[in-house]
């Protein structure tokens, strides 16, 4: 059963969890919704509670003390009727109503069966995180080529390594934990191809120096990788995957300053799995449809625009974590806390428990953390750009849109003859971005191929996740304003 909530939080990753814990501590009633079967999001992805003995993953994690503190606050709040925890609920739409927001979700606890659910509250916090950004290359659609986040999700969520000889490529610090995790589980990590130049960090040393926590984690990976004899190859990229029914080899090449492969440097390495990640792209579906202003971030993504209290431009709507810009879990946690403080201040219903002076001090500390971590995120984005000339490794036959199987040649032709200026026009002409994933995978790429230089803004998706017409019809029949159970 659900009582009326004061706040709905969508996303139970580091940001959503921290926000929920802070809002509950402040006396609010919260509905926390996540499509996953357990809370934790990407960073703290775990197998379900009952499976943790059979699938041990503790050693793959960082910051578990914080995770436990946040997750452990939930059962008591549930028992007290102040937390409506909705795991395995996929939110497919959120809309504004006169007195707040209606959040439409598909309850998939009994998947594949699903039931439509509507939750309502005066305030909404969207903390839906991000997914791996991809750049296509010949062979990236071969089975056994995954996103690095996908490799990590299989590892942290299911205790599974996708291969025994794995090559990783792309850019960004996230390559390191994935390499370390795979190596810890016995996979041979034969190459870690980092496109960026590590010296790029030296151009902006300040944020690194002011975030000593990051060194500890980085040094930990360095030790783990050295122990497993994993070498990170800077200024290198995986430019081709080869195989027939599945990937059997990759070709790697050194990159010139503009990111183009240096002739004569190509090497072939046999592998049975590949992981690719070029940073992350924020999951903005719900926020775009709600009409929030977006803004450009240093990594080339559009992100949701928020004020210094995580308020979006839509009254009553807040955002925290990687939807506001990719910056790692500690930033997501701090933004979640900050958002909850704003909700408490704006709701102004009951006096917040605790000493106001202590609260003000806590808030100042959280703001300082956010500022410090954002500076770090900016430095990270500048040190790990997408290689300017990445499209040079495409052939005309390279599939760009995986769903509709549209090739780079077709996209280039549309841009040339049709004069399509952006990914939306290209979509009309070629069907790139029209398939099941609705352009989540190829949108940024097609955008780069079509019109460089401008930040990528995703097209509006009417549903954030597909939902069966059966569940919708069922909802219509019941026609009840809020389903309670």
């Amino acid at each position, binding site marked *: 059963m659900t009582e009326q909530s004061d706040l709905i939080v969508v996303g139970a990753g580091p940001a959503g969890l921290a926000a929920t814990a802070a809002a509950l501590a402040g006396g609010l009633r919260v509905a926390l919704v996540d499509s996953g079967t357990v809370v934790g999001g990407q960073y703290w992805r775990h197998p*379900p509670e009952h499976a943790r003995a059979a699938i041990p993953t503790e050693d793959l994690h960082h910051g578990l003390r914080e995770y436990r503190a946040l997750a452990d606050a939930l059962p008591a709040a549930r028992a007290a009727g102040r937390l409506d925890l909705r795991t395995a609920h996929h939110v497919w739409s959120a809309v504004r109503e006169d007195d707040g927001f209606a959040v439409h979700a598909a309850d*998939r606890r009994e998947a594949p069966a699903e039931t439509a659910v509507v939750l309502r509250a005066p305030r909404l916090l969207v903390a839906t995180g991000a997914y791996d950004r991809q750049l296509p290359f010949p062979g990236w659609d071969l089975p*056994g080529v995954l996103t690095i986040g*996908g490799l990590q999700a299989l590892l942290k969520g*299911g205790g599974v390594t996708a291969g025994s000889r794995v090559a990783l490529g792309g850019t960004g610090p996230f390559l390191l934990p994935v390499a370390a995790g795979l190596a810890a589980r016995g996979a041979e990590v034969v190459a870690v191809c980092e496109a960026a130049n590590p010296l790029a960090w030296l151009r902006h040393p300040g944020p690194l120096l002011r975030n000593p926590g990051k060194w500890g984690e980085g040094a930990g990976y360095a030790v783990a990788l050295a122990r497993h004899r994993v070498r990170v190859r800077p200024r290198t990229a995986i430019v081709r995957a080869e195989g027939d029914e*599945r990937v059997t080899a990759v070709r790697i090449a050194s990159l010139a300053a503009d990111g183009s492969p240096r002739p004569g440097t190509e090497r072939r390495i046999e592998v049975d799995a590949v992981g690719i990640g070029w940073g992350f792209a924020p999951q903005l579906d719900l926020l775009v449809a709600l009409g929030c202003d977006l803004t450009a971030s240093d990594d080339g993504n559009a992100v949701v625009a928020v004020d210094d209290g995580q308020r979006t431009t839509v009254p009553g709507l807040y955002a925290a974590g990687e939807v506001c810009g990719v910056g790692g879990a500690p930033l997501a946690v701090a933004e979640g806390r900050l958002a909850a403080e704003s909700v408490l201040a704006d709701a102004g219903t009951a006096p917040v428990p605790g000493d106001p002076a202590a609260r003000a001090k806590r808030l100042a500390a959280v703001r300082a953390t956010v500022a410090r971590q954002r500076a770090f995120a900016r430095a990270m984005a500048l040190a790990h750009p997408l290689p300017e000339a990445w499209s040079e490794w495409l052939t005309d036959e390279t599939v760009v849109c*995986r769903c509709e199987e549209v090739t780079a040649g077709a996209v280039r032709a549309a841009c040339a003859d049709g004069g399509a200026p952006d990914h*939306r026009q290209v979509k009309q002409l070629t069907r790139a971005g029209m398939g099941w*994933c609705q352009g989540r995978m190829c949108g940024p790429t097609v955008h780069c191929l079509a019109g460089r230089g401008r930040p990528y803004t995703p*097209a509006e998706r009417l549903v954030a996740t597909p939902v069966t017409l059966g569940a919708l019809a069922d909802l219509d029949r019941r026609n009840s304003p809020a389903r309670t159970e």
Partner: protein
Amino acid sequence: MSEFSIDGRPVPFTEGQTVAAALVAAGRVAWRTTRVGHRPRGVFCGIGVCFDCLVTIDGAGGQRACVVPARPGMNVTTGETMTTAATATTAATATTATTEEGDDD
């Protein structure tokens, strides 16, 4: 270990794994064929955003193997999963609107 079946063949899994995790653990990285190029596909993003891993589960099409937890006795089938599920996505992609127009040069 428990078991489900894929196209009639048993797949062992540890309770708590998704259908995709169980298949990958069993050495299978592909289980679907694309419509146009008839290319093999399996798990790619692992978190429910790319839709490469689609299967039919107990008759319900269009299921993402990477997000559905495996359950004992589940009947998973592959092949043409695209048309069996009537989903709102089809409607949505057909009418997808654009709100954020970048101001072109």
